[in-house]
């Protein structure tokens, strides 16, 4: 006679060290094997979309900062591009260059947090602090430029709040030369570590078709072996002026689309971002960054959907204007929210320890999931 067994329901979060914020995962376990994962979200809901309807267009920018708080620059970038399309204005070339430089720095900073906290999830504490040490330097560059370290309000509709600091170009170049060896060190310490590979390779495999069906974008989609990057495939700003590669998952340690691939694509992307920054710093044109900022932003009646390649994936803004100073409706298509949906698919049949590895590898930011 078979013994009657019951599944254990384990509540992971909202107060759990590695749910990257306040996410609650309801796990159904068969021993330590997961049969079902249900993410419960909303603990950080701040009514961003409704709130914007009471704000003027420039006032929305500080709120966009607070969505994906690890990539604030890019949220502003996306919003500014969307409103500029609605207004039909062209920004000066220098503004575009500075936006790209800042955006790529933000991408490196965001990936550093993703990689560092991923190491922390797997149990390696030291790489986490090395990553944060390097991220601090990027944040200092931002602070030098606009005075804030996390929530910048720097990229405005039609321009930028400040021009670059006179020392910026030198410091940025210094950072690029400083950072390249650090990536190698990180690879030595974590990426190629046998234990780390054992923990992440062949775990949470996301096949290309599933990824596309679930609407996955950004590094997670590229790790599944699909070459899709909005910077190349739907160019905005001046990304078509730069020469860079789009790294895709090779499955070199296991299967294409496993956790290790998702992790490694981020490391490769940081190198590509360094390339873009170097090129942009070389040919940075002179000019006035505030000249194109409209005095009063009152877009014509209409709507726009504009998307940018956020460090985490496709960040889209859908804005409806009814000709007032306030937007009629803003809808955000956030990558983290979409990526969280694939959790159940990825986690089935894995162990409790793997759920941490999978959640860390898809790199969500709860501020943006809940908005």
């Amino acid at each position: 006679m078979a013994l009657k067994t019951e599944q254990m329901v384990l509540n992971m979060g909202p107060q759990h060290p590695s749910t990257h914020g306040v996410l609650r995962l309801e796990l159904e376990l068969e021993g330590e094997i997961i049969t079902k994962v249900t993410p419960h979200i909303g603990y950080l809901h701040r009514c961003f979309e409704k709130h914007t309807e009471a704000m003027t267009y420039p006032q929305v920018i500080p709120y966009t900062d607070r969505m994906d708080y690890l990539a604030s620059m890019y949220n502003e970038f996306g919003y500014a591009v969307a409103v500029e399309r609605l207004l039909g204005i062209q920004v000066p070339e220098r503004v575009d260059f500075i936006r790209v430089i800042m955006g790529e720095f933000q991408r490196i900073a965001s990936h550093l947090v993703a990689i560092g906290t991923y190491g922390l999830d797997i149990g390696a504490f030291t790489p986490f602090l090395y990553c944060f040490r390097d991220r601090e330097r990027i944040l200092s560059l931002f602070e030098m430029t606009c005075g804030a370290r996390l929530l910048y309000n720097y990229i405005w509709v039609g321009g930028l709040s400040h021009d670059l600091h006179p020392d910026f170009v030198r410091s940025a170049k210094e950072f690029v030369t400083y950072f390249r060896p650090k990536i190698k060190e990180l690879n030595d310490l974590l990426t190629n570590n046998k234990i780390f590979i054992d923990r992440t390779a062949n775990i949470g495999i996301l096949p290309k078709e599933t990824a596309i069906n679930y609407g996955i974008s950004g590094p997670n989609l590229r790790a599944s072996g699909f070459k899709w990057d909005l910077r190349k495939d739907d160019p905005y700003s001046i990304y078509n002026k730069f020469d860079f590669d789009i790294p895709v998952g090779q499955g070199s340690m296991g299967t294409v689309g496993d956790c290790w691939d998702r992790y490694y694509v981020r490391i490769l992307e940081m190198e590509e971002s360094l390339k873009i920054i170097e090129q942009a710093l070389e040919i940075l044109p002179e000019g006035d960054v505030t000249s194109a900022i409209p005095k009063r932003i009152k877009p014509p009646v209409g709507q726009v959907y504009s998307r940018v390649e956020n460090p985490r994936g496709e960040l889209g803004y859908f804005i409806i204007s009814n000709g007032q100073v306030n937007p009629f409706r803003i809808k955000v298509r956030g990558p983290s929210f979409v990526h969280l949906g694939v959790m159940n698919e990825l986690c089935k049949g894995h162990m409790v320890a793997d759920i941490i590895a999978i959640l860390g590898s898809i790199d969500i930011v709860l501020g943006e999931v809940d908005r």
Partner: protein
Amino acid sequence: MTYDFFFNLTGSYVWADIIQSLLPLFIFILPFALFAVWLERKVSAHMQDRLGPMRVGKHGWLQTVADIIKLIQKEDIVAENNDKPLFNLAPVLVFVGTYAAFAAIPFSSAYIGSNIDLGVFFIVAVSSFVVAGILMAGWSSNNKYSLLGAMRSAAQIISYEIPTVLVIITIVMITGTLNLGTLSEMQTGHFWNWMIFGGPTFGLTKILLIPFMILAFGIIYTSTLAEVNRTPFDIPEAESELVSGYHTEYSGMKFAMFFLAEYANMFAVSAIVAALFFGGYQSPVGYLGNLFNIPWLVPVEQLFWFTAKGLFFVFVQMWLRWTLPRLRVDQLMQVCWKYLIPLAFVNLIVVGLLTLL
């Protein structure tokens, strides 16, 4: 030696026994735990380009004392649905298991808590006592994370006992004794007499033994690392998965007991490794006491060498912890059953054949 001294001092066997048994606790374990916690923080901080505690005392050396004072003052929380007798007993049991192991550890030729002939065997037996404590803690906490942690811990400690014991058997086969005091005495002289360099007897066997001894050392060091739940084998308390495993629900002094036991255990296993492979309390180069003919200096030097060796291995444990990620629970078992145990068996057979030479 010290026992006779205490007997003469107090004139009673009972008092001499009590003092003798409490000596390692107050002279060694408590100060060591305080120092080791501080060292762990400092080592981790400097490996991560930080400074670590700097405020309490010079370079924060009193920080752990301050922490202990804080822990004593903290409220002792016992949740309503905890199994109270087990919950209260668990930390004591864990600590007792660790503390008992110190009885057979030879700190110097003058002080061995209890110089029993079954020394190594006693330590192995008594340190498995810890498993019972951890299981009790996990079960009585009435918390799923604690239970998972405790289950993992039980599986882990019991599995890793096998390679440990196999390596110990290898050593015992060469030396023919289980008494740690005798084992240490055998490795006297200079460092080339240590077991890691093939033991005290000279000849072809000694040279042939060296690679196998190094392998044996690797196996026992890895498995003791797992027995004390240190990274990469810290899955019973993996903070990113199980919050903090079996001691999630503990606070105040009970938590401090677990903590104390962990650090005491770290030294205990390091001491065993040192005693088995690195000459125990023997100096690698000779004694100043013998050189200047001061007999009482020799045991003191021995204590110094023993502590230094133990601390070195504790340092390596910390070094590993702040370098490596942790394994998953099934991989942990894989490392034990697929790698360590077969290798330990092969090693045992080869060493057995070599000793026949």
